[in-house]
């Protein structure tokens, strides 16, 4: 009986550890170009990231909030970029790696396969690629925190 309880405890602890590792992705992040901030949330077992801040929030041509005008789907071209979900469907695979997701590049209107690797607790390696990881490009994202008042 003691053994069973011990085993269950170890199992539960490892599960909790796994969940904590997975949660490490949740937060607000800044892509390498510094022109945006992206908030990553967990919904059920998957992770999603949306643009929550833009260095240049308005389109210089129209003065209106920037829209997703490069989206190949015309019905999406009027959707504001702020609030747009650019990371979708990531699943935690262990060892600080989230896969099976996609990343959307609003500047090109293209969606790529993507793998996220946590380099340290405040740094992500985000690699967008086509089909195989060789054909891709990596960017470094850094964690943001609320300023202390």
């Amino acid at each position, binding site marked *: 009986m003691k053994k069973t309880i011990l085993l269950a405890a170890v199992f539960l602890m490892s599960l909790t550890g796994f969940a904590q590792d997975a949660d490490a992705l949740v937060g*607000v992040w*800044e892509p*390498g*170009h*510094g022109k945006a*901030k992206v*908030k990553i949330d967990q919904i059920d077992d998957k992770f999603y990231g949306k643009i*929550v*801040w833009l260095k240049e929030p308005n389109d210089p041509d129209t003065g209106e909030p920037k829209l997703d005008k*490069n989206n*190949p789907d015309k019905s999406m071209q009027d959707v504001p970029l*702020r*609030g747009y979900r650019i990371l979708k469907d990531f699943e935690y695979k262990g060892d600080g790696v989230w896969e099976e997701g996609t990343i959307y*590049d609003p*500047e*090109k*209107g*293209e969606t*790529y396969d993507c793998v996220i690797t946590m380099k340290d607790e*405040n*740094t992500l390696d985000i690699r*967008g*690629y*086509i089909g195989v990881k*060789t*054909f*891709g*490009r*990596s*960017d*470094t994202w*850094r*964690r*943001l*925190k*609320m*300023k202390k008042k």
Partner: protein
Amino acid sequence: MKHTYLKLILFSFILLGSFFTFAQEDEEDWDMYDNFELEDDTPVKRYAAPTVSGMSPQRFISVSFDAQMPYNYEFSEVRFPRSTGQGFDVDESNPGVRESGTADFTGGLRINTNIPIISKSSFVWQSGINFMDTRYSISPDAEFGESRFTLPNGNEARGLGQILNEDGLRNINWTNTLFFPMNETEFIVFQGQMDMSGNFALDSFQPLNTIRYSAAAVYGRRVNDYFRWGVGVSRTYRVGNMNYVPVIMYDWTSKNRKWGTEILFPARAYVRYNFSKNSLLLAGFDLEGQSYHIDEYSINGNSYEIRRGEVRPKIEFQTKLTGYIWASIQAGYRWDWSYDADELDSSRDFFRGFFGNQDFGMINTLENPFYFNVGLNFVSP
């Protein structure tokens, strides 16, 4: 009945709950994100991107077929300046024509790869193996047998027209490109190339000391998302023989993303018109060339090489077929810059440049035909 009420109440709660979740998302306080700062406030270094908006997509893998329309050629006699001390003076424009005819077809398969080995914001290394096959179908004015001649070492050799007709010319190339952004604006590009070119067959390569090396270094500034420029220097075989030339990069796109330039002079220079995100037109020129080892004429440990250089004014249409597969169609004019030949002492190349006076082994003339090229490309995101 009691159960039905309970279910209804429960359903209402779920509905209201999801509504509030939506409402919360809609009413997100975007301003709060102004107050987010880096957790680790070590200064962040930002880097210039390796391209500018609107440029034609970079090709990871490209397969194309190139074909020149028929043209006439005139080849001089084959001389051996290193073996016999006798060649053609560089100013000699019309040496006695020894062989003439018509190349009914010139062209073949071209396979190019440019694979990212390391691709990060701070450094990009791309590497690719390229293969270019040039087949000739030649109708000589006289029988091929009549162009045979005796080499200085006593062996009999085929005329160049017969060699081209039977063997063709081939080029295998390995190119490495390194992109080093120094900061958000400045960058340096290094490119190194190794080329094996000649009338070799794929199962019997020519000597490795005939591999020719090219390199280029460019310092550039990416002024904004729509414009970058650069200057540099290159050691190149694009004019046939080895040369050192300045390089000018000028990539620009108009704010409405319709017009632009893609210039890496002297290798290529285009004006670009983007019909849409998925199709574009380039008008300009390519400069292409290599030094092709002709095994049969390479005697006494020397390498006999055709210095093939051509300027190709052209119009090229590129369009997306599906996903990352694009088609390209080119039509243009193949203008002969050089088809002369040199005998290289112990296979070591020499620098003649534009003003050197080293004797040529052959002085050849090609008429200039139209050419076409169709290709399929797997392009970069």
